[in-house]
């Protein structure tokens, strides 16, 4: 990313027709740790890596419940995420008060997108530096939405954002066709397997299950299932399920099409530009 003379203000266009400030804001999302969202026909699941910045502190809260039928997972500037989640909660509550119904997810996201857009068009505001993965359930079924700082939002079948999320995205692309017919347990396992590839390299080699367990957060919402962040015991249960499934398979070394070695897909990651500032996971 080059510094140039057209990037000082969000209201300044570059000659190529780009808003550099908005694009820089999108970079902020890549600084956050990875998070994955995916859905089957009845449930939407969010999995987030919340590694604490040091051994002394508690882990970052990545998944924020908004309403009974909706929750978000964040990557980027946490303070901005806090403001957006407060706005979403207030919109959902106001809708519930007026209509005694859950805010339809697509409309809430449109509403949020409009709010975020105004910050990309004013000289006295800056774009929100946070990317959201929204998991919601309404009368149209489960939804996964990706919201980015440029105020765009994408309706996704599955998505992953944050640093080193490319391996998770590859996993999701490879297994996309399986998701719709999964059971609830299977879809959570897929989410955890997808995000495992986004661990920092040292953790992956040591394969310390207990530290991995403490570093992930899983949330689910769906039919007859209000938005819930799973507890530590439930997380362990799914990790056990994955381990059992893997040991029951014969060879973890050969590429059998089932992504047991997502590290191989980490290679394209090295082409990502290296950020020259201290970050949460690369001090």
């Amino acid at each position, binding site marked *: 990313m080059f510094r140039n003379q057209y990037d000082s203000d969000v209201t300044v266009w570059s000659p190529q027709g780009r808003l550099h400030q908005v694009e820089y804001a999108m970079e902020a999302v890549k600084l956050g740790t990875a998070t994955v969202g995916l859905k089957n026909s009845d449930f939407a699941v969010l999995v987030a890596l919340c590694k604490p910045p040091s051994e002394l502190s508690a882990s970052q809260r990545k998944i924020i419940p908004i309403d009974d039928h909706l929750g978000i997972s964040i990557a980027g500037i946490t303070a901005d995420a806090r403001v957006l989640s407060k706005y979403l909660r207030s919109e959902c509550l106001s809708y519930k*008060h*007026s*209509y*005694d*119904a859950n805010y*339809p997810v*697509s*409309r809430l996201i*449109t509403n949020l997108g409009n709010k975020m857009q105004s910050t990309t068009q004013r000289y006295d505001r800056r774009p929100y530096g946070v990317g959201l993965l929204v998991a919601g359930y309404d*009368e*149209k079924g489960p939804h996964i939405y990706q919201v980015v700082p440029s105020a765009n939002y994408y309706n996704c079948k599955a998505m992953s954002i944050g640093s080193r999320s490319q391996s998770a995205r590859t996993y999701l692309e490879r297994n996309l066709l399986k998701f719709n017919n999964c059971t609830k347990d299977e879809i959570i396992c897929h989410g955890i397997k997808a995000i495992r590839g986004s661990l920092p390299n040292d953790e992956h080699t040591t394969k310390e299950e207990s530290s991995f367990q403490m570093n992930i957060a899983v949330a689910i919402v769906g039919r007859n299932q209000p938005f819930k962040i799973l507890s530590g015991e439930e997380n362990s249960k799914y990790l056990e399920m994955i381990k059992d499934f893997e040991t029951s398979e014969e060879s973890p070394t050969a590429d059998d099409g089932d992504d047991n070695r997502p590290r191989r897909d980490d290679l394209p990651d090295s082409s990502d530009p290296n950020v020259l500032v201290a970050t949460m996971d690369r001090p």
Partner: protein
Amino acid sequence: MFNNGIVQPLWYNGPSPGQFYNFPGYANNGNMKQCHETNNSDSTRSTAMITTGSSVLGIKFDQGVLIAADTLVSYGSLSRFQNIDRIFKINDNIIMGGGGDFADIQSIMRSIDQKMIEDQCYADNIAMRPKALATWMTRVLYNRRSRMNPLFIDVVIGGIDENNEPYLANVDLRGRAFSDYVVSTGFARHLALPLVREKKPADRDFTLEEASELIRQCMEVLYYRDTKNSSQYTVGVCKVKDSTSNQCDVEGPFQVDEKWSFAKMVKGY
């Protein structure tokens, strides 16, 4: 109130009792506030109805709801407008019958139409459900009554909710909402409600035929007994057609089968 034989004021630092009401027959309404600058002129605000619609009756049956109202809008005791549809199709899931001041009904219909247009502009196949509309109306009407500026209406809202469940509710000018298998406004509350409740089978819902027959009977009773009813009425039907669509229309006008032949038996006819 009386202390040593002297009348104590009921409260301090507020308006004096009766200040906002124009007591009739008092030549000098001492503290009357004449606010001509603002548009809530408390002293001259009237909560009287001018052009009114009479009763509305709603009955829920196993596949949907029926809402019936006559086609008369009265001007006091004059039967002024005799061909007015007081049942409205809101969208494919909701029908609404309006009683009370008809100008207020038209005003709230305009707001509701705006809401429906907004829904269409989203173009996401999410149409409003009757419970949502009934809740919204309750909030609006309660807010208006709390500001001492009510919309003088009594409406019946019905339709098909999520999971293809029929829904029927009655919301009145004070923001009181009530949901049941039979609801009504105006005189129908006294005359029709007991009639329908008596006929309700204990263990199941009405069928469409039973509900239609009850509507016909109740409209007949209302025509004979309520002086502000006329013999012509329309019926809104909202019922489940299949798992994804409903049949939602306003049918009519129907005519009450008037039987006046007994008049000859009345002395002095």
